[in-house]
């Protein structure tokens, strides 16, 4: 065990969620060093006003991986990410109530009219969530062949990559702009505080008190 690991590490996702998260961090009395809010900064690890708490800023999918492997002790990730990996080492004890959206199946407008989902035995789907998609369709006896994309799923039906997509939907504008219709809601998504199981067990006071603090902040919000 290295000394660097003695500090607790909180993994936060880059981008959209981070803006919504800042007020919660503030309420939990976590103030990152100034470079954290500077988008031009190349720094990846940041100190905070708590000498034994550091923050790392990574892609949202990587938050779950860092925390599952114990490289970070705590993190913030949507339950879409938690469900996709389904790491047994992750706890998600607090619903932070931010980043609200849902995961849905969508297909082109003209397909909806002649489509009968009860007759499906196999579907091809472009998605960032191959595991959730496969499980979702397997549960009703349909085999899903997934094409993994990392973004711009909405292009797939138009260009003939796959007729259906599984993607996050918040307002539905993007779907509409691409002439797609949501046909099924898979799960509602919010951001959760996630915790590494072994970290919570081996440092029950350190990690537990942060969980408690985020719970209070989330309940108050």
């Amino acid at each position, binding site marked *: 065990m290295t000394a660097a690991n003695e500090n607790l590490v909180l993994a936060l996702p880059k981008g959209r969620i981070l803006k919504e998260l800042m007020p919660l961090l503030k309420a939990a009395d976590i103030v990152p060093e100034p470079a954290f809010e500077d988008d031009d900064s190349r720094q990846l690890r940041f100190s905070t006003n708590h000498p034994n708490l550091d923050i790392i800023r990574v892609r949202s999918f990587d938050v779950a991986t860092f925390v*599952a492997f114990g490289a970070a002790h705590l993190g913030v990730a949507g339950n879409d990410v938690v469900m996709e990996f389904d*790491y047994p080492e992750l706890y998600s*004890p607090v619903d932070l109530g931010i980043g609200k959206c849902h995961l849905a199946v969508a297909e082109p407008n003209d397909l909806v009219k002649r489509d009968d989902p009860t007759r499906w035995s196999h579907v091809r789907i472009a998605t960032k969530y191959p595991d959730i998609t496969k499980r979702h369709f397997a549960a009703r006896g349909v085999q899903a062949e997934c094409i993994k994309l990392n973004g711009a799923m909405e292009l797939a039906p138009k260009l003939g990559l796959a007729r259906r997509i599984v993607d996050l939907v918040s307002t539905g504008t993007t779907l509409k702009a691409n002439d797609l219709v949501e046909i099924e809601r898979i799960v509602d998504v919010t951001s959760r505080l996630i915790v590494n199981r*072994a970290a919570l067990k*081996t440092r029950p006071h350190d990690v537990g008190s942060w969980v408690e603090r985020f719970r209070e902040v989330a309940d108050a919000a």
Partner: protein
Amino acid sequence: MTANADQALLPAGLQDLLPPAAAQEAGAVERLIQAFRGYGYDRVKPPLIEFEDALLAGAGAALAQQTFRLMDPVSQRMLGVRADMTTQVARIATSRLSRAPRPLRLCYGGQVLRVTGSQLRPERQFAQVGAELIGSESEHADAEALIMAVSGLNGIGAEGLTVDLNLPPLVAALAERLQLDAEVTQRLRQALDRKDAAAVAQLAGDHAPLFQGLLRAAGPAQDALDDLFALDLPERVQREADRLKRVVALVQAALPDLTLTVDPVEHRGFEYHRGVTFTIYARGVRGELGRGGRYTTDADGGPWEPATGFTLFMDSVLRALPEPAAPARVYVPHAHARTAARLRTDGWQAIAGLVPEDDPAAEARRLGCTHLLKNGDVQPLDDA
């Protein structure tokens, strides 16, 4: 890729243990078994492969998906390669040793093989060392198993150990009393295993406060027990909770420095357990070092006995141990065979020169020795 490299490739999850790891593992296994023998546990050695139906009976069913199968050309029956040794030891206790006096104390060490590893612990073959205490209902039996596991690990140098105590039958008993249907119970259990507060709230409906209370009743042992006893529990569970409390007291008395946590809803991996269970962690080490708890030797209608025990996973245990110190090893130049033999009886590792050497010190260094025999004396190499 050369032909050589091609042959060196091993299947996923399997590896060659090299020096010094191989010796470290074997030594750790031996010392753990020795420690368990100090408590009067006798070693047993079940076979690597058994008939599938015996291996996967009762408690073994939980490992059916993790078991490699092959066909036995002799008996024409399916065989399973063991994925866990606990069920084998339970089988020995209820069959061949059914007349041995109770409580029966057995220990074991050996390799197991699994169909898949997890992403976090990719090993498919690893060593298990464990002990089972069969035929006692007493909470002193639960405490003995836990204390022995932790003392054994401390004895081989593992540091920063934490033990998490659980009560797997709790959720099922609560669900039964609250008359939740099987599917909701299953999903609720999954949500509780992930400590997914949002899903728990959604699934438990009117009973959400109770289950959320259980989620929060996890943490340092004393606080968690206070929280647990503040809840209104069904009688069957209350008995197990009382036992948990007594086990915590016994363990705290025996090992006052050990960090104990209690998590009443943890259930993963305890599918066949019937009472107090525990998981051993080490600070800064990914994954579990071992787990154990109370079960019954056979659930399939046959004769059954109360039992408790534990298994240590040696791949994780080794990660919690300090790097082994390089052994002191002496180079004995050519034609000093008798001196080499004397040094060995004195406890040295003595490497004998097989051919006359020009510069014994250089040869000793090349072979990684720490000492050299010079002028009839063993001298450290730095000064040689």
